[in-house]
């Protein structure tokens, strides 16, 4: 059984008991524990079920690469699936449930899959479930989906907060083990700005666990002294519980700091995402121990040797009473010695190497531990816990020589440098045959903006596998002064690669030798993939799902590659690796999103009158980043009733529209007229001061992009109005042409959209209300249609434009933004006696449609040219050039069969459906019904009390009076007649008063 020993545990505080719940059981641990160590202390080795076969799974590592011990953690708004028990700090009240089983962890009906394993080899689902067709979606897929997945889906809204943080430094060091500390010490002493981050809650990495001697003192002491020195340096920032998660171009490092995972609900953010820009990244990320591939290596109790040691030394937890150690390198002997030293039994060290270990072998023998060299494990016995192992010759096929009772198997297949950060941005690897590992190729690092490598590795991440070598590597890479810090460890004999144990294992053994514990990929699966032609490493990975589990192959990839290479009769470097992608271990989506959620996800732009609208029944419509009032609801009326009321009132009395969102761009300079002649399809240079002109803008591709009224302010100044959504875009468009094509023209632009509030005062009583406010002369004679004038109204400094988008007598009055609300209030007050009502965007749309005015975004959609819309009158024939002119000469643009704008009037007076198409006879070569037109905008006109619409129709203007069929989506047909698009007051009598 696994248990807490009475002594030991360098990271725990035995005075602080912390109670927690696991699968409903009330358990306790100590402060400093993580969830895995606390569960093991309570003899809870079984922690989960595998993905495919639902095999029982125990913890296999002591770090973030853990594939098995994943938990549903917390509840409600603080629930998190797939939390790694090995990296979840224990806290009082922690609530965890194991995953991927039904009805319970101990008894899981899904485990029937394991019985069927022989029918479910790699890629089985590609070969099955093909017939009958509907069964995949309705039967097979749901079964597979419910069997797969791991944690539960969160349901409640996240209660925590998150933040982003920018940081800049000279050197960012990832990994707070001895190599990282050494690197920080050198860089810090050299005066560089340093950030040193460690993903765990404590510094020093493996060295204190392994009992290394550094600079003549125990590693623990050297680490403390080094930390003290670093803390004294103002130019060094130290952070624990912070992972270097990803490396991106040009020295961008993503840091993921877990602030409150050990104290849910604490003040402040749960996670913080660091966006670090640094001149240099040092990946001192250490190495990960590899499992060995032998039959039954997935049974709970088979654990990495380093992890067994970690639980013992760091947490005072023994994983079992009798530990068999199996290895192909020296490091696992440390586990045997540590267990023996703690008074536990180590019946045997199985060393696959014929030569065994050197100094550590002697030490093991001296401690009374039996060592068998040249041996392997042929299989592990046990169900939910290891009960024994069978020993065999490593060189053979697995005939058992001996069975040894045990409850833990501590395995070590060697170490793989953590090269993820080196590789994220293109750093290349080389295969190191002697150490049996891929290590960074220092000649081919990731390239930064200046063409030089910006990531280096230090320590074990470089492949420097002894303590002394790791420190020396950090010293060299950081250019430290003098000699490297001396260090000793007892490692002497080289690793001998073991990719299958025993070497010539039978199919029976290979089909029980796991490579990927979570995804249930076995040696036999990779071999099958290779035989079936999935020879590329990417094919084999995707076919078998090797390395695609939540540990992303940290434990399985190298072993799998070796099996693949072996099967293909080639060597490991020829097979190559899969691509390393960020993040190093999974990071929370919430941290990626940061603070910007809810109301501040995308801040809303507000006009000066916004609050008035909100207080007066505005039903909002998002337009760009603005909110505009769609209509103003009064009492119990519906949206549609409100809109109809607003139209009637504006046409009969007086309406006010907040037009402040319309773009306002000042274009000024000696060449401004020439420039605007290029920007607009019509002539703007000959516009007279004091006058306005409606203008169209096209893209260089010829398509209509924006429209609006242009006013000439003085000899070299124009003011261009744009659509609400177009202000920033059109200003950018103008600047782009000015800066990149006509940079010698003397023109200046300014986007003054937000500097002015603008109110459209519309209706038969428009002039009356302005005259009541008093000030400037707004009479028909003084301020003629399409004229503008500066003056005062009711004491406000205004610019009044006499323009109309409704067909009514209409003034658009601009005032400085700061006075917008006051001016609006003054108009509302003065207008009371004239029946004033505010109106919203829908009323605006209906009134313009009644008048046959086009709307950008309705009649135009990015494929329409002005000629389609009957706007040829606004396209200058005199100008040699304007943006879009050349494009409009292309054959498709001049095609007489382009659909043209017309009015549409339903035969029965109903409203045409939005977006409906007019059908023509027959179908095209692809069997699609032929069409001859479409509705671009459609409304119920309160003025005419019938449906009106505009649309684009083949030869439309030549077909007045013809009736077209517009099918609804339900197949019924609406008939509509082609009519003139001007439905109301075609002579313009109402606006010209």
């Amino acid at each position, binding site marked *: 059984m696994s248990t807490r020993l009475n002594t030991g545990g360098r990271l725990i505080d035995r005075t602080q008991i912390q109670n927690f719940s696991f699968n409903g059981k009330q358990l306790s641990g100590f402060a400093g524990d993580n969830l895995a160590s606390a569960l093991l202390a309570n003899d809870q080795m079984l922690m989960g079920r595998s993905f495919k076969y639902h095999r029982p799974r125990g913890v296999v590592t002591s770090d973030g690469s853990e594939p098995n011990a994943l938990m549903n953690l917390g509840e409600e708004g603080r629930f998190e699936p797939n939390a790694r028990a090995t990296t979840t700090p224990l806290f009082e009240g922690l609530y965890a449930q194991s995953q991927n089983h039904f009805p319970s962890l101990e008894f899981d009906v899904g485990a029937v899959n394991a019985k069927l394993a022989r029918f479910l080899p790699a890629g*089985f689902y590609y070969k099955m479930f093909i017939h009958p067709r509907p069964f995949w979606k309705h039967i097979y897929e749901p079964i597979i989906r419910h069997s797969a997945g791991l944690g539960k889906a969160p349901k409640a809204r996240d209660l925590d907060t998150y933040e982003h943080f920018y940081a800049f430094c000279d050197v960012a060091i990832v990994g707070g083990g001895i190599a990282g500390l050494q690197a920080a010490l050198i860089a810090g002493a050299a005066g560089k700005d340093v950030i040193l981050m460690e993903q765990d809650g404590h510094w020093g990495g493996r060295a204190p666990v392994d009992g290394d001697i550094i600079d003549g003192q125990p590693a623990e002491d050297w680490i403390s002294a080094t930390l003290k020195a670093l803390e004294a340096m103002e130019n060094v920032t130290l952070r624990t519980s912070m992972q270097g998660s990803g490396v991106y171009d040009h020295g961008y490092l993503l840091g993921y700091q877990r602030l409150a995972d050990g104290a849910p609900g604490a003040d402040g953010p749960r996670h913080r995402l660091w966006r670090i820009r640094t001149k240099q990244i040092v990946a001192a990320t250490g190495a990960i121990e590899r499992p060995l591939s032998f039959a039954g290596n997935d049974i709970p109790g088979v654990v990495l040797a380093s992890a067994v040691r970690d639980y013992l030394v760091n947490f005072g937890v023994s994983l079992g009473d009798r530990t068999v150690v199996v290895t192909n390198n020296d490091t696992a002997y440390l586990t045997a010695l540590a267990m023996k030293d703690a008074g536990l039994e180590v019946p045997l060290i199985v060393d696959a190497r014929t030569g065994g270990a050197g100094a550590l072998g002697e030490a093991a023998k001296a401690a009374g531990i039996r060592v068998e060299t040249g041996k392997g494990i042929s299989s592990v016995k046990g169900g939910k816990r290891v009960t024994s192992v069978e020993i065999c010759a490593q060189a053979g096929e697995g005939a058992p020589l001996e069975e040894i009772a045990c409850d833990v198997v501590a395995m070590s297949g060697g170490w793989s440098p953590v090269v993820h950060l080196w590789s994220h941005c293109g750093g290349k690897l080389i295969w190191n045959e002697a150490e049996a590992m891929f290590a960074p190729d220092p000649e081919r690092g990731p390239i930064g903006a200046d063409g030089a490598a910006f990531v280096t590795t230090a320590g074990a991440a470089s492949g420097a596998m002894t303590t002394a070598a790791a420190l020396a590597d950090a010293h060299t890479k950081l250019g430290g002064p003098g000699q490297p810090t001396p260090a000793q460890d007892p490692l002497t004999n080289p690793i001998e690669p073991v990719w299958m144990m025993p070497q010539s294992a039978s199919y029976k053994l290979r089909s029980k030798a796991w490579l990927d514990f979570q995804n249930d990929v076995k040696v036999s699966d990779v071999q099958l993939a290779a035989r079936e*032609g999935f020879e590329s490493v*990417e094919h084999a990975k995707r076919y078998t799902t090797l390395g695609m589990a939540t540990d992303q192959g940290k434990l399985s990839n190298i072993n799998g590659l070796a099996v693949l290479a072996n099967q293909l009769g080639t060597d490991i470097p020829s097979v190559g690796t899969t691509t390393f992608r960020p993040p190093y271990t999974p990071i929370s989506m919430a941290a990626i999103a940061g603070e910007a959620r*809810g109301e501040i996800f995308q801040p809303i732009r507000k006009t000066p009158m916004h609050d008035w609208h909100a207080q007066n029944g505005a039903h909002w419509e*998002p337009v760009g980043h603005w909110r505009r009032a769609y209509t103003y609801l009064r009492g119990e009326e519906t949206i549609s009733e409100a809109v109809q009321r607003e139209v009637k009132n504006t046409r009969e009395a007086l309406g006010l529209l907040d037009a402040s969102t319309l773009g306002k761009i000042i274009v000024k300079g000696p060449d401004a007229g020439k420039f605007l002649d290029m920007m607009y399809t019509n002539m703007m240079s000959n516009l007279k001061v004091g006058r306005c002109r409606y203008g169209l803008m096209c893209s260089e591709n010829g398509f209509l992009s924006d429209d609006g009224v242009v006013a000439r302010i003085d000899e070299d100044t124009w003011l261009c109005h744009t659509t609400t959504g177009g202000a920033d875009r059109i200003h950018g468009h103008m600047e782009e042409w000015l800066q990149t094509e006509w940079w010698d023209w003397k023109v200046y632009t300014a986007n003054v959209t937000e500097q002015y509030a603008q109110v459209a005062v519309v209706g038969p009583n428009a002039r009356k209300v302005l005259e009541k406010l008093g000030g400037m002369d707004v009479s028909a004679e003084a301020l003629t249609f399409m004229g503008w004038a500066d003056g005062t109204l009711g004491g406000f400094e205004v610019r009044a434009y006499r323009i109309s988008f409704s067909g009514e007598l209409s003034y658009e009055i601009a005032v400085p933004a700061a006075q917008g609300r006051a001016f609006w209030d003054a108009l509302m007050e003065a207008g009371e006696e004239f029946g004033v009502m505010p109106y919203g965007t829908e009323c605006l749309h209906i009134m313009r449609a009644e008048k046959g005015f086009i709307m950008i975004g309705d009649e135009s959609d990015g494929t329409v040219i002005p000629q389609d819309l009957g706007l040829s009158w606004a396209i200058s024939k005199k100008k040699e050039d304007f943006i879009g002119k050349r494009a409009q000469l292309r054959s498709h643009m001049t095609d007489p069969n382009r659909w043209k704008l017309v009015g549409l009037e339903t035969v029965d007076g109903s409203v045409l459906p939005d977006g409906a198409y007019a059908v023509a006879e027959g179908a095209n070569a692809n069997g699609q019904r032929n069409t001859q037109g479409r509705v671009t905008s459609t409304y119920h006109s309160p003025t005419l009390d019938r449906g009106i619409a505009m649309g684009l129709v083949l030869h439309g203007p030549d077909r007045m009076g013809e009736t077209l069929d517009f099918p609804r989506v339900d197949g019924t047909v609406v008939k509509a007649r082609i009519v003139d698009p001007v439905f109301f007051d075609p002579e313009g009598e109402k606006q010209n008063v």
Partner: protein
Amino acid sequence: MKRYSAFAVAREAFRHHTGWERAWRSPEPKSHYDVIIIGAGGHGLATAYYLGKNHGIKNVAVLEKGWLGGGNTGRNTTIIRSNYLQDPSAAIYEKARSLYEDLSQDLNYNIMFSPRGVMMLAQTEHEIRGYQRTAHANTLQGVATEFISPKRVKELCPIIDISGPRYPVLGALWQPRGGTARHDAVAWGYARACSDMGMDIIQKCEVTAIKQEGGRVTGVETTKGAIGCNKMGIVVAGNSGQAAEMAGFRLPIESVPLQALVSEPIKPCMDVVVMANTVHGYLSQSDKGEMVIGGGTDGHNAYTQRGSFHHVEETVRALIETFPMISRLKMLRQWGGIVDITGDRSPILSTTPLDGCFINCGWGTGGFKAIPGSGFGMAQLMATGHSPLTEQFGLNRFREGRFIDESVAAGVAH
């Protein structure tokens, strides 16, 4: 070739799966083929497959510089839909979608087409009108879609927050027979079927030159030697510009990174595909349980197969607004592909200035869903010189100004 079935799997189970054949042969190239397809991605393999199946042209080589299916076919978010606005797009995507329906049976390879339904959320008035227009167009195009209410959206996808606050869900364009498929399996299934017809799929074979005589293509130089052909199809997505340069013409194409990401797997919680174009994000759940997330492209040209992290931030931030539950999930992996984007963001399936040389490219962010239709039409074009499916997607449209612009209704995402 032995057929795949549950019985075959059971039979093999009793002999340790030793009887399975290679899914595709790994031949050395012959000196000459009737047709060479450059690029063994989904589109290239599908082109070869339909050349054989529909037109009896089986003396075909598919050349691949890396490993088959290793480009965008294996890097996308596996969404299949055909709810396009413009007729030519709707035709080819619906052809593809309908072929996907039977593709597992056709190829005898389970490509796991899952018609779970695709919805495109309308989150502005403008989108409502755009999708209503699309629904009308689809009705006439024979594409089954409908515009549905927010309430129905919530019923179909309970994890959506339809209330906003920034962008409430106002409705959606719903295609019930849209869905997903297993992307690798599509490439593998076509490859196996092509190989079975006697076609040669030659991996790790990079084309270094395209040979021509008198304005007609005659073959290629490759890292595995010279290979002759009567006709050639270039189907190399992000690398189209380079291939076209070898063939002596230029393309209206730019190659930019497109990123995607997945969460850790969780139990089933979402049985539809959702696209939210206002905020530029889309989301579905894979059969493994991962939430599969995609967004917009990076802005600048690059061939790095990786992008910039702020795009990932924007996508995740946007999706959390509409799917609050993903806030508590963790990102498992992010990756990038190179997408080839044309001047009107619609694909090119076309003859070229070089006689006998055809090109299929420019699928941008939307290629996976089109694979069977693209291959079907391309094969028809190459075999007969004409295909109604590809007719509107010719290179000449850029000169004529005859664009196929889908951004009209759908925003940026494909």
